[in-house]
């Protein structure tokens, strides 16, 4: 009797291994004082290595760990996006109170843990890895939101995210259990086969309830209305580097599994869920855009704008075609660039103005600090979908996929949402370029201590983290400038990004047309 040891495809697993090794190294380095302060360098090296390994595995198409994970175009591309977002968060966090107060290594370890969860989630092809990845992504994030220990809003946002996130996870888990009950399988492909084979399972109420609960659970994670209420509060309260990471990377990873689960496992049910997801997308577009109109805090505004953008991206799944997935991934990549540019500028302005992210702190920046004003302007124009930016091409891609599959009304919704969105994106641009410059008097107002709770007011007066020269720190400015440049570059020469997106879509060619 012979026994074959299971073949382990180390090459395809290497990104996950590298990331885990990086996480362990950071935790270990924490105890060694001399190298402790090189934590960010260590994190960047780990992320760069992982990115390198992912690119090495660019053409991989492998089922791993007995079908629990799958490294393919979709996983590679979306993992790369989360890693870019994580690297930006590491840079933006240098010198941030959150990172310092929470202990640098701990903060970085939490971040790396979350990234690991995302990379696993992007590869998940089984309900078990799906859920494990999602929790590994979420739990460190709950903690990260609360790492600005001296700000009440930060702690509040951590708690709020924990509660809402847990509800989302529980809903999702419940839905997964129902689908398991209906199909008798945990792997995505087997679920699809099980649903097809089962008698009447495709229209069974158990199945449909499961689908609904899973959609709700995922909607919580990517902040789709009406499951979005946590988003503005958490975005505003969390330390900005974390917000930036959360806004971008969580969406990329959660959309990866959203695509895979709905198109592969629930592919046979596409006719049932497409209308439901279309309704959610349309609602998100309206709620996000209208909600953002009234905001004065830049971070809250970006939160609402993220809800609307999630609605646009969800429309890509509604089409249930490869073109829709391509469009979604393209938009997601553009979204990374646009948001990174915006959040990096917010981080810089926060440090210069005593942690105020009010839109009024931007007044006159176009005249005084063009290096900050331009990236934010480009980001806003790109989010509003104006040419020549990647945001325009992204919308074009999505609308084309929608019209091609007779979802023209949803395409019109995207156009209508974009019109509403001009109202708030251009308010930022107007503040940057068209208002009078801020004067000293108002500078004092921005950190008006009377209106703040006492423990914060004390911090604001002599804030050790306030940094007048923040706009000259390369590690803060570089992400802003590079991301804005990318948003323009891929608007003028979109072909490379189109191929990137098609690489993701091709991975699903077996399952969708």
């Amino acid at each position, binding site marked *: 009797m012979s026994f074959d040891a299971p073949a382990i495809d180390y090459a395809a697993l290497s990104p996950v291994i590298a990331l885990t090794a990086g996480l362990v190294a950071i935790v270990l380095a924490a105890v060694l004082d001399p190298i402790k302060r090189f934590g960010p360098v260590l994190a960047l090296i780990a992320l760069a290595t992982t990115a390198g390994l992912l690119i090495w595995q660019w053409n991989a198409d492998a089922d791993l760990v007995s079908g629990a994970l799958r490294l393919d175009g979709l996983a590679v591309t979306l993992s790369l996006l989360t890693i870019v977002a994580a690297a930006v968060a590491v840079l933006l966090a240098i010198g941030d109170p959150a990172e310092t107060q929470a202990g640098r290594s701990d903060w970085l370890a939490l971040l790396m843990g979350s990234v690991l969860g995302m990379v696993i989630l992007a590869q998940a092809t089984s309900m078990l890895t799906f859920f494990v990845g999602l929790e590994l992504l979420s739990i460190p994030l709950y903690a990260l939101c609360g790492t600005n220990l001296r700000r009440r809003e930060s702690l509040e946002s951590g708690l709020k995210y924990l509660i809402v996130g847990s509800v989302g996870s529980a809903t999702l888990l419940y839905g997964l259990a129902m689908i398991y009950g209906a199909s008798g399988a945990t792997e995505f492909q087997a679920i699809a086969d099980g649903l097809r084979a089962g008698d009447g399972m495709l229209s069974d109420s158990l199945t449909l309830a499961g689908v609904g609960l899973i959609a709700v659970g995922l909607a919580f994670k990517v902040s789709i209305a009406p499951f979005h209420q946590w988003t503005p509060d958490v975005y505003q309260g969390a330390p900005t580097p974390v917000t930036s990471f959360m806004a971008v990377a969580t969406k990329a990873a959660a959309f990866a599994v959203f695509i895979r689960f709905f198109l592969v496992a629930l592919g046979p049910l596409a006719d049932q869920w497409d209308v439901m997801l279309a309704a959610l997308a349309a609602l998100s577009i309206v709620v996000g855009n209208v909600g953002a109109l009234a905001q004065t805090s830049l971070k809250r505004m970006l939160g609402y704008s993220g809800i609307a953008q999630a609605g646009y991206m969800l429309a890509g799944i509604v089409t249930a075609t490869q073109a829709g997935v*391509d469009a979604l991934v393209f938009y997601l990549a553009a979204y990374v660039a646009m948001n990174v540019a915006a959040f990096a500028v917010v981080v810089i302005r926060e440090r210069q103005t005593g942690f105020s992210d009010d839109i009024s702190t931007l007044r006159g920046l*176009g*005249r005084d600090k063009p290096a900050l004003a331009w990236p934010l302007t480009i980001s806003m*124009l790109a989010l509003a*979908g*104006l*040419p*020549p930016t990647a945001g*325009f*091409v992204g*919308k*074009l*891609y999505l*609308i*084309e996929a929608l*019209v*091609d599959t007779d979802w*023209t009304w949803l*395409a*019109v919704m995207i*156009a*209508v949402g*974009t*019109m509403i969105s*001009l*109202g708030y994106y*251009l*308010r930022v*641009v*107007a503040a940057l*370029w*068209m*208002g009078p410059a801020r004067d000293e008097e108002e500078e004092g107002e921005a950190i008006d201590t009377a209106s703040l709770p006492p423990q914060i007011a004390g911090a604001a007066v002599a804030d050790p983290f306030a940094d007048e020269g923040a706009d000259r720190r390369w590690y803060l400015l570089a992400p802003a400038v590079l991301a804005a440049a990318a948003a323009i570059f891929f608007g003028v020469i*979109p*072909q490379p990004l*189109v*191929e990137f*997106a*098609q690489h993701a879509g091709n991975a699903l060619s077996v399952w969708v047309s």
Partner: protein
Amino acid sequence: MLSSIIWTPIVFGLIGLLVPRRFAAWVATFGAVITLGLAIGVLAGFDPDGGMQYVTDVTWISGLGVDYSLGIDGVSIFLVLLTAVAWIPAIAFSALRGVERPGLYYFMLAAGETATLGAFLAQDLLLFVLFFDLMIVPFYFLFGIWGRDRGGDDDPAGSPGRGSVTVQSATLKMIVFTLIGSLLMLVGAIAAAVISADGGELTFSIQAIVARGLPDGSQNWIFWFFAVAFLVKMPAFPLHGWMPDAYRAAPLPALAVFSAVLSKVGAYGFLRVVLPMMPDAAELFQATMLVLAIASIVYGSIMAFTKTDLRLVLGFSSVAQLGFITAGIFAFELTGAEGAVLQMVNHGLVVVPAFLIVALIAERTGSEELGPMGGLAKRAPVFAVIFLIVAMATLAIPASANFIGEFYILNGLFQVDAAWAIVASVGVALAAFYALRMYQLTMHNPLPDGADSREISLRDALVLIPMVGIVVVLAFCPQLIVHGSESAVESSVAVVREVAK
């Protein structure tokens, strides 16, 4: 060749950002002159009966079927020339006065020229939509950064008691109105390509979509998605709501090119895209469009007659003129459409000096209001003559090219139904009222206190006289444009006439 026309302005604009501030204006002027030279070069090798020429066609986004496809025909060549001509005085006029943050200002102006030229030359529907959207962005910044709040207490030049306008609200209104139109147009453009492809290979080439044709039912809604975008841009009644505020807040040199050229892109879009691509819908909605056009003529003329702010007089007169142009196009007669093309060029050529004259008047009287003005002609005969020519051209006095243009348009309308032509001709009469009123109240009458009647300076004259010279030359030989555009215009309207039979 066409690519170099499009990209030359913005390249010089970028150089202007890099050179020291005092050279920025001259780099931009130089760029505009070179662009005009290139445009004239194209004209020299242009064959009026040759159809689409100088074609460039490169794949841009292969996954989406979008091509970087350019070409020029009898309609676009004159609009390209108009664009290239109009930008020079606007830039030079700013250069003589100096502006804040010159690098950025000239970059934005140049970007506007690039986008406008792109819209006139694009032969790919999506490229057209892209340039159409792109046009508004630099003007949003130009109006927003260099515009002024109007009607406030500290604004002597504004219109006291007419409601104040802030730059921010005016520019926001403008860009929202414009983009409401153009985003729907984006959906319409994609729908047109997808529906016409009918499962085959997707392409946005305008000619290919025209050749494949669209089913009647789809044409009807896609028609409105395009029409709204174009009518807002013109602007046409009742979609002109953004115009008064934006015109009052804008800096005059930028407003001059905005009013002269950008409004024409809408009218051009009807000829280039709407008529050939959606002939059934155009035929079906002919009456609606003519009603809108004639409403624009009457409403614009009356408003121009009642307003006292010079910018608004010119703004509403543009609404009326664009109404004429739309009416000419939707007559679906060769003469009407030829008149429309001629009138697009005429109006553009007249409006640029008109707005610059407003700036000169404001320098002399400190106001842009007709009320407290007068007598400027007293010591400034040359200035008065320049203004008189512009005013006469605006009211389409016989022997001006505008007269020929309006005559052609009315002739075209008459062939559809005499009633249309009769109502439209009211506009011609009203034009005489507002143009002469504007001239009289500024130039004649006693000179009010504090106003300074001084002759136009040599440098300003050098900026204005060439424009006015072109207006005069065109009055003698409008057939240059009428004949040059004939075959291209014919191919657009023939499609609709074919359907109508």
